């Protein structure tokens, strides 16, 4: 159907069908990829994008369908088979070993290694590739020392090292800062210029428009539209995905602040490496107000959320919740003072993968009646709660008993949101709440945060997305190197000023 772009596709998937208990994850999905091009794969949470890619790299066996690489029919049984064919994938959740170095991770699992690989030789080749693609990483650094953005570069290097010609990137920008995303865009451009091709999954329309030549939209396992990027626009794509018009703007009532709910006075804290991460942070949030925290990732956002929720000790300063001293209290005491927390690391911290969706949803409320009485759980009531949450938050899951790790990335995030918003009784700390959500769900989450605010709760919203902060926050504080550079009312703030402050400039006082 798109014969004009290039004669033969480097990759073709035909009629791929994949069932899981209770769901049809892929339903006769087709896909074509041409050399030197980027294909964007779009679709709502749970549409089947990751599944289709997992079939391609041999992690899942399709029930039906065929795969052709360079015109040849192939059977792919494992990622190793895929690698032999030059196909490599960077997963939604990285798969690196934290206690090993970059170089060790890169050669880990390779089959054609000598018995004792020469690590200096490996490091030399890694440097060569990093230079060619501008992928700055130290081969001898340990993974745990790297930021998320750097870890992703390692994942990409790993593929290039193994000579991948077809790269699959599953929501690579979800965890990146806008700067890092731009950088990634350049790297992809560099690779396609060399004739490599990429499949790119994202929920961000700008990226689709910027990076790709072709777009495929999936819905409930089927491919429902194939478009040339140049011939479409974000509104049309959003409509194709969700099946209705999506509002990119939200209506917001005026803020009616109540009592101060959270107050930080001159708070300092260290990061995991023992270096200062917060330096004398002070601010307060009233009930009925959303305070946004802007800043480039790594400037103390994570530590800020953790000190407020009791997960990290402060080295100096005071934290007050509802006027009561809550400095260095245990996470349980903080929870009991009405604080909810949507954490940045949803898989590692937010859920227990091998437990049921229902159990995960109950993990905040299980301490009190009605879910527990005299220490005895009421499974039936847990199930009822879960059913209600699954419906209100439109969590796509085969059943409440499904282990949550089998849900799609976005639906896991929705389950966390459901639990935390439902349990919230005063302060909601939301860290990148719309990360990994499709446009419809993003809109829904923002509306929920506004609902919380209108119900008189205080919301601390940490986000990298300035657009998001400007639409829903009432005031925006900018964090730079652990300091608050200034706090602006959202309706007078503009992206330029915020950008300057994020780079370290102080609020201009006129």
């Amino acid at each position, binding site marked *: 159907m798109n014969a004009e772009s290039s004669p033969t596709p480097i990759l073709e998937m035909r009629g791929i069908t994949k069932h899981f208990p209770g769901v049809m994850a892929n339903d006769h999905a087709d896909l074509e990829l041409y050399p030197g091009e980027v294909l964007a794969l779009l679709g709502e949470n749970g549409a089947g994008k990751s599944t289709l890619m997992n079939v391609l790299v041999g992690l899942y*066996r399709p029930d039906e369908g065929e795969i052709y690489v360079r015109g040849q029919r192939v059977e792919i049984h494992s990622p190793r088979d895929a690698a*032999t*064919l*030059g196909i490599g994938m960077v997963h939604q959740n990285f798969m690196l070993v934290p206690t090993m170095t970059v170089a060790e991770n890169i050669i880990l699992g390779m089959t054609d290694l000598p018995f004792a690989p020469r690590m200096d030789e490996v490091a030399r080749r890694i440097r060569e590739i990093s230079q060619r693609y501008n992928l700055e990483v130290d081969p001898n650094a340990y993974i745990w020392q790297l930021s998320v953005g750097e870890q992703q570069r390692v994942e990409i290097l790993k593929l290039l090292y193994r000579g991948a010609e077809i790269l699959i990137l599953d929501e690579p920008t979800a965890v990146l800062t806008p700067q890092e995303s731009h950088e990634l865009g350049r790297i992809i451009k560099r690779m396609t210029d060399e004739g490599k091709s990429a499949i790119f999954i994202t929920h961000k329309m700008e990226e689709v428009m910027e990076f790709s030549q072709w777009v495929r939209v999936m819905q409930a396992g089927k491919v429902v539209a194939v478009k040339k990027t140049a011939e479409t626009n974000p509104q049309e794509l959003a409509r194709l995905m969700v099946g209705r018009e999506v509002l990119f703007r939200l209506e917001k009532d005026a803020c009616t602040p109540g009592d101060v709910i959270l107050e930080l006075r001159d708070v300092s804290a260290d990061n995991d490496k023992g270096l200062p991460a917060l330096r004398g942070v002070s601010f307060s949030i009233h009930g009925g107000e959303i305070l946004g925290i802007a800043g480039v990732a790594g400037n103390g956002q994570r530590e800020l959320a953790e000190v407020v929720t009791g997960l990290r000790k402060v080295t100096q300063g005071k934290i007050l919740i509802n006027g009561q001293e809550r400095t260095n209290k245990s996470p*349980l005491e903080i929870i009991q003072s009405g604080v909810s927390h949507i954490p940045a690391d949803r898989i*590692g911290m937010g859920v227990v993968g091998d437990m049921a969706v229902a159990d995960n949803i109950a993990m905040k409320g299980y301490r009190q009646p009605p879910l527990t009485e005299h220490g005895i*759980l009421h499974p039936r009531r847990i199930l009822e709660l879960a059913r209600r949450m699954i419906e209100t938050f439109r969590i796509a899951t085969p059943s409440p008993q499904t282990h949550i790790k089998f849900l799609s990335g976005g639906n896991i995030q929705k389950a966390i949101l459901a639990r935390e918003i439902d349990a919230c009784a005063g302060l909601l700390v939301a860290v990148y709440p719309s990360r990994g959500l499709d446009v419809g769900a993003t809109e829904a989450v923002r509306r929920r945060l506004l609902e919380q605010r209108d119900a008189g709760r205080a919301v601390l919203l940490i986000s990298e997305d300035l657009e998001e902060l400007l639409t829903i926050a009432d005031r925006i504080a900018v964090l730079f190197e652990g300091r608050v550079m200034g706090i602006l009312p959202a309706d007078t703030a503009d992206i330029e000023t915020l950008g300057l402050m994020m780079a370290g400039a102080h609020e201009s006082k006129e």
Partner: protein
Amino acid sequence: MRIVFEKRESVSRRATVLVPVVSFVVSLIFGAILLAVSGANPFVTYAAMVKGAVGSWYGITETLVKAIPLMLTGLAVSIAFRMRFWNIGAEGQLTLGGVAAAGVALYWSQGLPGWTVLPLAILAGIVAGALWAGIPAVLKAYLKVDETLTTLMLNYVAILYSEHLYYIAWRAPGYNSGTAKFPETAWLPQIAGRANVGLIFAIILAILLWLVFKYTRWGFELKIIGENQTAARYLGINIARNIVLALLLSGALSGLAGACEVLGLSRRLQQGLSVGYGYTAIIVAWMAQLNPIVILFVAILMAALLVGGDQIQMKMRLPASVGLVLQGMILIPMLAGTIFTEYRIRIVRPEKHAQPEVTS
């Protein structure tokens, strides 16, 4: 044609049942080879084993005798393992439980009303086992000291201490080793052959544990801690306290096992209290996939193996070591088999397009 190892997309229920069964059959085949090599007829030997273990009332009750401590220690380590706390100290906890029970039976029983002696002796065993497990638990929970080492080392301490007692400090006059027989008020009744009331304790405890893990808030918290500690901390669960509590319970069950051994079987403290039940318990718990009810049955199976092994030593005149090697031989495939609940083997035939071609 080539063979590929594929990760299963989900753990299949059929595999979790089938794998142990198939592994057991493979184990028997391996054992048979070993027997043939050492010059014994495998069929005759196996027949003798089965007959020895379950072929007579005596055999059945002897199997139960060994199953009791395996059940209790199996349940004990399963609690710790659920929290990924590698308690390999059940042996020491059992020994110390036996020592404490013996101490009460021997030295405290005089001044007390008769009916209190037995409960007190059992209680002493429980408490001793709990404390002995509590030490490594506290070290781990509050100081991050690796538990595999501490629990193992404490085994030696407990075992050597018990030896000191029955060889020297508590030795009955006129004997080379062993204490005097306990007064009858301290005897745990035997219910079938030499199998004692501990069997009933084990069954009740298994059911209780199953209920606790499934239906209580505490069980829910333990499960979360075992699955994902970062999430547990984030959810406000007190990890350190729960580790200590769970380990106290784990040690208590092992201590109870020790108490039942001395009060219900030997009725004196003597050599033979520590014969490795605490280690076999690890295998029992693992094979049962930590399910308390399944542990009861696996413990009986293991006990039958032990009794059967002893029988062939006596009846077939095989060297004692063959019986032990045979037991080990039977375990290895059963443990290795668990990998197939997560992976499966596929044989790929080279059809015209079945193999990925190697690109240049």
